[in-house]
């Protein structure tokens, strides 16, 4: 082979790889730019009062405490519903189900549920929870709607974690005379727990940032009082940001918008980051 040709191949490789590098850099720069922009614009309005006070003077003053607490209620409620159901489905799929038609139908429905647009969950929540079951625009309706959204993610993450438990763990448990259920409950589940929790927290962080599903099932722009029961509507951070962005062009709204955005991405990205770091640590210290 001619030396000339070899050199050409080398330059070609370097050029194309540089192109890939450029794509990765562009992506990173765009998204880092957005985060940085929000930090710079929003940091000024973050204060203890902003986090702990209610809005005042038609949203132009005061804080966003009710929206933060509303988002907390909605996501906590979603977790309380979705984690047991999702975990049970994952346990069924990985520990009980025999491979076959039913198993693949359930898997297909999980995959498709994950692909359904969030606004359709919102429509369903409005038709079923709010109207049909008569729960009204409330924390309960919103939490149940969000629970449906995060369930597929929890199922896949939990199943993944359960699958990684080596067969020898189960065999050792059976060898000690434990039943199938004892093995699942005392050996497999505790070993898979960290993976399940981190996967669930990741899905929960996404749920906290969702707007469309809670728009007509749980959220309102302004409440006079903090919610006192599960049947009360709430303010929620993502919906609050949407409303602040579209409600008007008042000068005083601008810093509150960016401040709310910063709180939301701090919450969502912070939760995700914590889960990712813990997961990386677990993977590193894995005993098998």
């Amino acid at each position, binding site marked *: 082979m001619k030396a000339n040709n070899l050199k050409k*191949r080398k330059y070609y*490789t370097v050029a194309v*790889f540089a192109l*890939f*590098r450029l*794509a*990765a850099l562009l*992506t990173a720069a765009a998204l880092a730019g*957005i985060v940085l922009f929000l930090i710079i614009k929003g940091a000024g309005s973050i204060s203890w009062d902003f986090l702990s006070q209610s809005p005042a003077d038609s949203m132009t003053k005061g804080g966003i405490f009710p929206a933060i607490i509303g988002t907390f209620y909605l996501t906590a409620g979603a977790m309380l519903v979705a984690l047991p*159901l*999702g975990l*049970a*489905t994952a346990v*069924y*799929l990985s*520990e*009980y*189900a025999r491979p076959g038609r039913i198993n693949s*139908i*359930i898997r297909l*429905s999980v*995959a*498709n*549920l994950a*692909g359904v*647009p*969030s*606004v*359709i969950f*919102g429509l*369903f929540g409005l*038709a*079923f929870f709010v*109207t049909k079951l008569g729960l009204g625009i409330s924390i309960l309706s919103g939490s149940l709607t969000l629970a449906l959204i995060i*369930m597929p993610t929890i199922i896949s993450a939990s199943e993944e974690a359960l699958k990684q438990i080596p067969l020898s763990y189960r065999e050792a448990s059976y060898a000690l005379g434990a*039943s199938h*259920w*004892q093995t*699942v409950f005392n050996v497999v589940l*505790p070993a898979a*727990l*960290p993976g399940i929790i981190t996967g669930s927290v*990741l899905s929960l962080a*996404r749920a906290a*940032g*969702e*707007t*469309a599903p809670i728009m007509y099932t749980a959220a309102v722009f302004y409440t006079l009082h903090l919610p006192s029961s599960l049947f009360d509507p709430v303010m929620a951070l*993502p919906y609050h940001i*949407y409303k602040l*962005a579209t409600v008007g062009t008042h000068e005083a709204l601008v810093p509150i*918008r960016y401040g709310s*955005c910063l709180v*939301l991405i701090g919450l*969502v*990205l912070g939760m*995700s*980051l914590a889960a*990712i770091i813990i997961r*990386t640590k677990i993977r590193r210290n894995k005993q098998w």
Partner: protein
Amino acid sequence: MITHSNVWRFFTKPLMKTRLAPRRGLNGLAGKDIGDRQSRIIFTVLGFTALTALLLIVLFLFLEGTALFIHPAEDGSRVGLGDFILGSFWYPGYTPPEFGILPLMAASLSVTVLSACLSIPLGMGTALYLSSVAGPRVREWGKPVIELLAAMPSVVLGLVGMMVIAPFMQEWWDVPSGLNMLNASVMLALMAIPTIASIADDALESVPRDLLEASYALGATPLQTLMRTRLPCALSGVGAGIILGLTRAMGETMVVLMCAGGAAQLSFSPLDAVRPMTSTIAAEMGETAVGSSHYSALFAIGITLFLMTFAFNLLASFIAGRYSQKGYQAA
């Protein structure tokens, strides 16, 4: 010492004493059988939650949506399926109301296609870089960062599109409004890139090492190995990732609601305001009475959107299965 299994025991100890848990002692064997059978029944029933949820969603979408075609509208006029899908005017407030979703479907598709022009090259470039060019350190950091960005709330991207991109476009291109198809597409691409990059990277990463080594042994350069061995081997996963990323873009609501401009017109110019299906549902649901024909029409849009994303999802799983490596088992 506090380990996670200790924590687990602490919280589940009371649970173990219930009848679900096997009794120990003399009749331990009988108790074990009961616990086993009960747990199998309970988990089998709960295992159907996802399927039930999907069926309920389909049922209620169709119940509310098909009412549009079955019952006459408030003024007595009827809406046919053909008028709905092929009608080019969306005037739900007129008498008689016009429920033609062609402009909405066209807007959804054109926004998705335009965002794909940006998200596929950037997402694939990122995946190829992370899997084959980057060193181990960059890899270790890059993957979690992508995952983190996939969690970026859409309403935040929508706000950035509204507050930053829109004024910028207005100034530079001298268009009447910066809220248009192009703006929404750019922000949608930012949502789709992490999905595409993450799934494509997983697929590239799972190509067995000995295939790559065989390629190198034949004298191929890293680029040739990547393009002729690694990428073709990972094609099924890469294809599925691209389709899932685009499906995510098409089903995204907040970005298009805030950045696309919201004019229900049949237009294919990137600088025109459009109104995709998702944003129509989100914007108008608040002003309709439950059970009115407008309400049913929004659910009918939901059915259309659901069927479109369902088809894309099936296509993704079909591609993932069809072009996956058969007959080669990785060690």
